[in-house]
């Protein structure tokens, strides 16, 4: 396979280096524009399939507010976001919920759990 070029913006730190990458498949041939080495891992992952934390809300009953914020406890493939959102739509929690409580386990077999990001008391 011939080498290809792609432009990335590193989001590992706030500097946001603009990196020009020459790659072959998932192998990096050269990188230009990055100010540090931390970007390498990031770029490699972007080439394989971008991974992100998903943050959203799920429904909750018995508390003052109707939804509670949640997130994945580690990065998950970005392409799974739509399916995850769909799955989370079906969840309905009961207050009280504590921060970091697991709301759903191993979503879509990613190994990631969905956890609550705040405490919501019963009211």
């Amino acid at each position: 396979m011939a080498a290809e070029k792609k432009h990335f913006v590193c989001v590992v730190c706030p500097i946001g280096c603009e990196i020009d990458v020459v790659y072959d498949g998932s192998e990096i041939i050269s990188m230009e524009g990055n100010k540090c080495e931390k970007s390498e891992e990031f770029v490699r992952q972007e080439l394989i399939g971008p991974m992100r934390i998903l943050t959203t809300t799920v429904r909750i009953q018995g508390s003052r507010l109707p939804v509670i914020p949640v997130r994945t406890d580690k990065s998950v493939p970005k392409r799974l976001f739509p399916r995850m959102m769909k799955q989370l739509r079906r969840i309905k929690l009961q207050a009280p919920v504590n921060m970091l409580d697991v709301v759903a386990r191993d979503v879509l077999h990613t190994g990631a759990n969905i956890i609550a990001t705040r405490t919501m008391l019963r009211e």
Partner: protein
Amino acid sequence: MIREVDVAVIGSGPAGLTAAIHAHNSGARKVLLLEREEELGGILKQCIHNGFGLEQFKQDYTGPEYAERLIKELEKTGVQCFLNTLVTDLSSERVITALSPEHGALEIKAKSIVLAMGCRERTGPSIGIPGTRPAGIFTAGVAQRFVNIDGYLPGKKVVILGSGDIGLIMARRLTLEGARVIGVYEIMNYPGGLKRNIVQCLNDFDVPLHLSHTVTEIRGKERVGGVVISKVDSSLHPVQGTEKSIECDTLLLSVGLIPENELSKKAGIELSGATKGPITTETMETSVPGIFTCGNVSAVFDLVDYVAQTGAAAGTFAARYASGSLSADRRPVDIVAGENVRLLFPQRYGFQDDLVLFIRAAEPVEKPVTIEVAPPGSKINRLYARPNEMLRVKVPKEKLAEAKQPIKVSIMEK
């Protein structure tokens, strides 16, 4: 009935929470935290995305997690909190007037006060757009609250005006919740928000960003039916003939934040034209003795870590002021903006502590720069200077002891 306290903190966002904790830890006995909402935490409660606390806690928290961590810390101190309590007036004699369903019309006399009221969103440009005023026009922050706290979608086909961070974050959030975000239109030729947000919120979801574009008309009688978009020239005027009409049911505005200083004005506090917040020394004291300030009411900070840092200073020095242990002789010198500096925080130096300066560049410099602080003539290097990312530098107290004339801060290419 007049209540008396040592330190009163107005606002319970990250700034106010940190200030209250630090005031307590610095020995203030009676600390009172006043918050107009039903819960502590400020705007963080609705910022459910991650990216908070990377510096302070070395953790990638979401807004609510960051807030809860501070709230738990506060709970340990036993600081008293009045929720649902809106401060309506403030005097230079440090008397606070507030209203609350539980406590009635309150009068509070405080030995020192910390202002931590945060900021509000600008709406100005929306008022300037000709056309109708149908339902479906929101600031990004209001939309964020509706989606993340109330669980409601503001609309289904969305145009975003302005590329501020909240707008970018909402582009992603609304897309995830099933709305269609048609595009983000920014009048300037550079984005307003952080680069990482452009990548993670727009590029990740194929939402286009159109620079040098603005909304020139709003259409629709009852609900927004569409907007007209135009290109702008270098002086930001719409270019005739470039109008394009776009069908949508929602217009979100993300055109910047402005410190919330109605109360500061009532107390006669001197405000800075650049930051729109109080003019402050490194102890976070304003021009009115005994009134301190921190967080986004002082200047709009990019990172919550910076906000917390100012809160810590404000809380500590407010406690010292209340106990009378802050040196009475603190005639400050001015800190002035030199080359390529749009705004500075703080704007005065009072010889009490190290000087931590927050600087916003006027023009972007995408190569290494030197920040000069003179006197004492310190030179600090950074990799770049961008208007949308504050620079922070620290100059130790010892070095500044002899500074007799205004301290000038400049950003120069290296």
